[in-house]
Structures are given as C-alpha cells and as structure tokens.
C-alpha cells in the first residue's frame, strides 16, 4: 500500500463502516416492511377478488400469489427478486412493479431536484446573511418569514399559491403534470407551483441551522484572528466560518432533501402530480401489496443513502479525519 493510501485509510475505513451499517439498516427495514404488510388485516386474495369470488378461485389466487407458503419463504422470495431487480407484478393491473415505479420515480426525482436546486442555495444564502447581520432587521424578517412559511400546513400554501398564481393570474397551470414534454422549460413551468410550495416548506429549517452553525463558529478565536488580519466580515463568514460549520448544515440539508423525495404525498395530491407518493397512496387503497412494499423500500433506501452521504461529507469536511497526523 502506498503512503498516500495508508494516510487516507482511516477515512476509507470509516466510509466502508458507514456503508455496512447502511446496508444492515436497509435489511432490517425490509424485514419490518414485509412483516407490517403481512400483518395487515384481511385476506388479500379475498379483497382483490371481491366478496362474490368462489372459495376455489380465492384459493387458486392465493396459490398464484404464493400466500400459501410460509412467511420466511415468501420474504426470501421477495428479497431475492428485489436484489435481481424484479419487484414483482402489480395486483391491480398486472404490469411489472419496476416499470410502474420507473416513471413515477423519475417524476418525483425531477420535482425534488427542482425544489432542492432553489431551496438549498436560498436557505444557505439567507442563513449566511442572517449570521452576518445577526440581530438586524434582515435577520428578524428572514426568521419570521421562513418560520411562518413552515408553520402553515403545506396544502394551505399550495391552495393559496394555486389561487393567486394559477387561477387569478393564470401564470402557471394548477394541475402539475410534467408529462413527457421534451422541452425542459415547459416541464419547469408546469411543475413550478408544487416546487415553490416545497421550497417554502423546507427553507426555514435549513436556513435556521445554517445561521446557528455559522454563528456558533463566529465566536471562535480563529474568526477573531481572521478579522485582525484585515479580512472583511463577509469573507470571514464564507471562507473562515462556513467551512468549519459544514457538518451540521450538510446533515440538515440531507434530511430535507430526503423529505423532498419521500414526504411530498400531500403536495403531489393537491397538484395531482404523478409522483411516487401518490402511487403509494393509491396502492394502499387498492391493496396493491407489491407496489406498496416497493415504494416503502425505495423511500427507506433514499433516506439511508442521503444520510450516509451527509455522514461522509461531514467527515470529509473535517481536516482532522481527512488529514491524520
């Protein structure tokens, strides 16, 4: 092993360790999802086929679903399928779950990315300015405004925006189906209202954490030292304080981006946006078990992956770990 590799080993080992924990967490969650779904009351075959089905057809359908097999066997069968990319078939329409998910996942990711690209720089920027001018009018107004935004229920914000920007002004469509439009600009226009709603919901949290983390570091002697070297206040905040405050900020950003992907059911329903959240809600109503399981697993994986990423970034911004003695 070369010198450089030996020096970098602690961080690689740490990342490998986190990855291992992530995989284990995902395994535990898959068991929980599977158990929870199989504990749902009522017989799935009966529910799907309806009250009029004969006992023979129900039994045949149960066999077809594998419901007559022991629980552990069914779990292994499901996990084995997932690992090879086969999520099974939808009970509602018989199409492969993977195919159903693919389109919806794309839409959800598009909306989440859209909101994140606006919200993260906005929140971090506002947080830095609030830290720079702490105690000023700007600080207070930014605080009150973002707090109010987070305090309203998101459907309320959604309907207000829809009323003004869509119904009254007619600038944006109220039904936000991006469709398969080839033009990005058109897609952005159609998804604008749900994206802005999400931005308003997540900005406050990230902004307040940025402000708090930076203000915390601004008390450090090396910040005073930087000012005594003649460094301007803005440069002190962005170049000296921010790099040392990144770990908590990265964590809260990851948490909020994860929420943008997994927690947007209500906004999707309000704007009739064809995302993963709406698919999951529909599938729960339809008792479409394979789809519900697949959605839950994807949500869990997104959470774990983003938190893992945050952990690794937090480690990578710590020079003590990145450059051992």
């Amino acid at each position, binding site marked *: 092993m070369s010198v450089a590799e030996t020096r970098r080993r602690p961080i690689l080992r740490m990342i490998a360790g986190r990855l291992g924990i992530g995989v284990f967490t995902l395994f535990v969650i898959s068991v929980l999802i599977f158990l929870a779904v199989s504990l749902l009351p009522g017989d799935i075959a009966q529910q799907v086929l309806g009250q009029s089905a004969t006992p023979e057809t129900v039994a045949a359908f149960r066999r077809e679903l594998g419901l007559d097999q022991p629980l552990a066997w069914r779990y292994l069968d499901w996990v084995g399928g997932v690992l090879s990319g086969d999520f099974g078939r939808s009970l509602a329409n018989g199409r492969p779950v993977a195919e159903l998910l693919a389109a919806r996942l794309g839409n959800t990711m598009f909306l989440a990315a859209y909101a994140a690209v606006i919200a993260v720089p906005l929140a971090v920027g506002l947080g830095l300015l609030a830290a720079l001018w702490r105690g000023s009018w700007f600080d207070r107004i930014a605080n009150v405004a973002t707090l109010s935004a987070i305090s309203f229920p998101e459907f309320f914000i959604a309907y207000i925006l829809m009323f003004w920007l869509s119904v009254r002004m007619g600038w944006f469509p109220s039904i936000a189906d991006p469709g398969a439009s080839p033009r990005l600009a058109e897609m952005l226009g159609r998804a604008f209202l749900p994206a802005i709603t999400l931005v308003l919901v997540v900005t406050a949290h990230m902004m307040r954490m940025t402000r708090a983390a930076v203000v915390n570091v601004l008390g450090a002697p*090396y910040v005073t030292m*930087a*000012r005594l*070297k003649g460094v*301007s206040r803005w440069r002190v905040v962005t170049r000296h304080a921010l790099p040392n405050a990144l770990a908590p900020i990265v964590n809260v950003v990851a948490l909020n981006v994860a929420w943008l992907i997994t927690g947007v059911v209500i906004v999707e329903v309000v704007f009739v946006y064809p995302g993963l959240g709406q698919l999951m809600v529909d599938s729960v109503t339809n008792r479409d078990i394979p789809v519900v399981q697949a959605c839950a697993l994807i949500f869990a994986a997104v959470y774990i992956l983003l938190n893992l990423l945050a952990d690794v970034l937090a480690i990578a911004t710590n*020079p*003590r770990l990145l450059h051992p003695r």
Partner: protein
Amino acid sequence: MLLNIEKLKVEARGDEGWTPILHGVDLQVAKGEVVGLIGESGAGKSTLGLAALGFAQGGLRFAGGRVIFDGTDLLQLPERRRRAFRGRRVAYVAQSAAASFNPAWRLLDQFCEGPAIHHTAGRAESEAFARQLYAAMHLPDPENFGLRFPHQVSGGQLQRAMVAMAMACKPDLIVFDEPTTALDVTTQIGVLAAIRQAVETTGTAAIYITHDLAVVAQMADRIKVMRHGREVEDAPTRRMIEAPAQDYTRSLWAVRAFRRPPRALPQASAPTIGIREVTAGYSSLDVLSEVSFDIPRGATVAVVGESGSGKSTTARAITGLLPPRAGRIALNGTPLPPRLAQRTLEQKRAVQMIYQMADTALNPRQTIRQILSRPLQFYLGLTGRAREARLNQLMEQIELEPARFLDRLPGELSGGQKQRVGIARALAADPEFIICDEVTSALDQLVAEGILRLLSKVQDETGVSYMFITHDIATVRAIADEVVVMKGGRVMDKGLKAEVLDPPRHAYTRELLASVPQMDPDWLTRRIAEGAA
C-alpha cells in the same frame, strides 16, 4: 512616534449598562521599539493591545481617547478603512495558536491570505517569503511545512508559525498577546528566540503582553505595568527591574521570593502513597513506563516535567481512573485496587484531587454550600448541625467568610476564590493525600502565591500529603519537600528538593532549569549565544 494612544477609554457591556475597563490609558511606541505590557488578568492589557489595531472585542466599545497610528486616528475611521491597517501595518499574535489558526485551512494558505487581501504580494512571492520565514524560525522541513493543517503541528511550532504569519505583510508593529503563556518552559525558549530574532531582523516595533515578568524582561526595551485598567508605572526595562517605583510593581517582583519555612516531617512506617513500577497508557500506547516513587506522610512531592511527560497520567493511575497495566500503588503500605470501582469508600475518601481549572471543576449551578456538603455527606455521613459546623470550619480554613460566600454560585467568585473552594472540597473528605494538578498555573502570580501559602498552612494544620503536579520551577522551589522529574513517561530523577535542583543533578533537570526565564534582561541573549534555542 509610530503609535500614540492617548487617554483611551474602553467600556464593557454589563447587566447595568456600560462599565469602564480602561480609564484613559496612554501608550507610545516608537519605530522599532518593543514595549512590554504586564499586569494580572483583568488589568486591560489585551484590550489595550487590540486597540492598537483599532479593534474592540465583542461586548466592548471605545468610549474616548485616540489611537493614532502613523498620523491617522484609527478610532475616527470607518470599519472598512481600519481593515486596511490590520494585518498590513499592525499585526497580531494570539495566545493560543492552536485555537487561532483556522482548523480547515493549511498553514500556508493562512499565511498567504493577508498579502492577498491587502495586495502586498502575489501568491508565489508570499509562498517564497513563508518558506524563508519558516526556515529562519527553525521549523522542520520549511519547504513543505506550510502544507500541513494546524492539528498536524505541535504547539511550539504552531506558535512560531503564527509569528511568521504576523510578518507576512511586513508590518510596522506586531502585538504579541501572551504568545508563550500556554507553552512549557522548554518549548517557550524556542518561541522567545524566534520572536526576538523576527523583531531584530525586520526592525518592526512590538507590543509584548504577558503576566510573566521574567519573559517581558527579555523581550522589551520599556515596560508598562497595568492594573484595573490604569497605568501603574512605565519605565525602561532595566530601571523597572532594578528600581521599581510603585508598591504594586514591587509586590509583583516579590512573588517569586516566596519560600516555605523549613520544617520536620513526621516519622511514619510507610509512605502515604507508594508507587512501584507502574506502567500505564491509553489503547496500545504506554504513557508511563515503570514509574516508582513515594509520597512520604505529611510531605509535598512536586512532580515536574514538560507536557506529555506523564505527570497527569500518574495522577490518573493513583486515583484509579486509569488502571495500570503493571505495577502496584499502595496507600499507607496497603495495596490499592487498580480500578476506582473496586476501591472502598474509605480508600476513595483518602485520595482527593484539586484541579487546574477551578472554573470547570465546580458545578456552575450549585452554590458553594451544595458543592461542599456533598463530600461531607457522602464520605463522612454528616448532616444537619454537624455539617453546618464543618462547613463553617472549612470556609474559615480557606479564608473565605462563611456568611458571605456559602450561598453564592461559583460564577460570582474570582479565580482565586474558586480555587480556594476547590481546595475546601478536597479537604471536606478529610483526606490523607491530595493531588494538586497544576492548581496555580491558570492564576495570576499574586493570587497563585496566596493559594500556595494556603496549601502550606493546611498541610501544617492537617498533616495531609500533597503530590504537586506543575511545570513551574518557581512553584516547586516555593513549597516542595521532594521533587520527581519526569520525561517521556519515565522518572529521570527524584529526591529531596536540594539534592535534585541545587545544583541540578540530572542532565534533563539542568535543561529544564536553564529554560526557565530569569529576571536578568540578558538571560535570553546568553541562552541563544549558548546555542539553547
């Protein structure tokens, strides 16, 4: 005159409005002159030093006077124009380099930041200048030294790197704010030599702030003594040392003269604490190797050595916080179980500790009464009137009036008073042995002397034994009966104070003593000439 501070007034924000902390102080620094500022903490030395950069710390404000630097009154300038002076014309060297370097930046990038924002030199030019300064300050591998992060460099090297950084824009004045206070004497001498050399070769003027008289005597052409935000005395160094005019200045000089009167130690069959071939450490690293020494009954044994020598680890092994890997520790001839959890209440009671930072060792939410009552109840089962009587007795022993102090919180006490409470807490357990871990090193000299006198008095009254961990030889001379010299986890020398120190018996003791700054203003010059730094 390069810097002319006239009638400077600075105020601090308090609960009841603004209170003055500098009451109209004057300070003149000529081109190339080094002025020493000394005084106890709270004297306003740092505030005055920072004023030379037109800077007031958070919660402070300038309330009057002028800070004229090279013809410009900095206090009249807007913040943006003051910045043009900071780092470029007036630079600053902080006390703790470890805290004052940005942990996320390489040292070289921090060096080059000043020249870049002040446009005094291009990147390549300042990098070359940095390497030149690193070499001049005897930093290891000067070519690549700057590529390291602050945590990859030792304390003494970091402090020298900070001196180098202050010189990056070739300033006319450098403010050194206690630059060696946090260092061991053996490390300090190297930094002092680096500062001396930097000042002499560039001809920059300097303000040197410290509470160590011997240090300031080496560095300064002129000394100003401050107290409570006012000037006490201002005179050229030699005159100040030889003939101080003010009582307060004389009292500062006298602290070092404290010597405990000689006394007879009681006879005992076994030492209070016997340490035999103790090896201990953390994870795979041995910090102590086969350490053996005794603490005789009623005696004060000073354990000296630089940081990392294993002084505090020995204390942790004795208290049972760090069970030794090998060796035995005995109390009055009876072996102590290695782990704290295995020790009886009686054994725990017998060994108590007093800490360096009284601030953090006392619970800020508990009154002095609560702090002292806890050991009284836990170890001795005292309650009600008996406890009250003992509380009063303890407070009188540490010379704090019970009625005034018992119901106060630690935050309402001065540093010296807090340390006295720390002593009372150890005494409350009625111990046979107390470990004093650098108990005076965070205190001003006058206050520290009071604590040493108190500890001596308590020993005379109770016959308790002390292990006195310190890196300050003056403290050792003042109160120790015996001395143990440690280095790298081993005992270098041990014995009666006179045997070990006068004259130094072991080569390392000799080095340690030679590194302690003397009041003689020519001491550092001589040491540099002898090749010590």
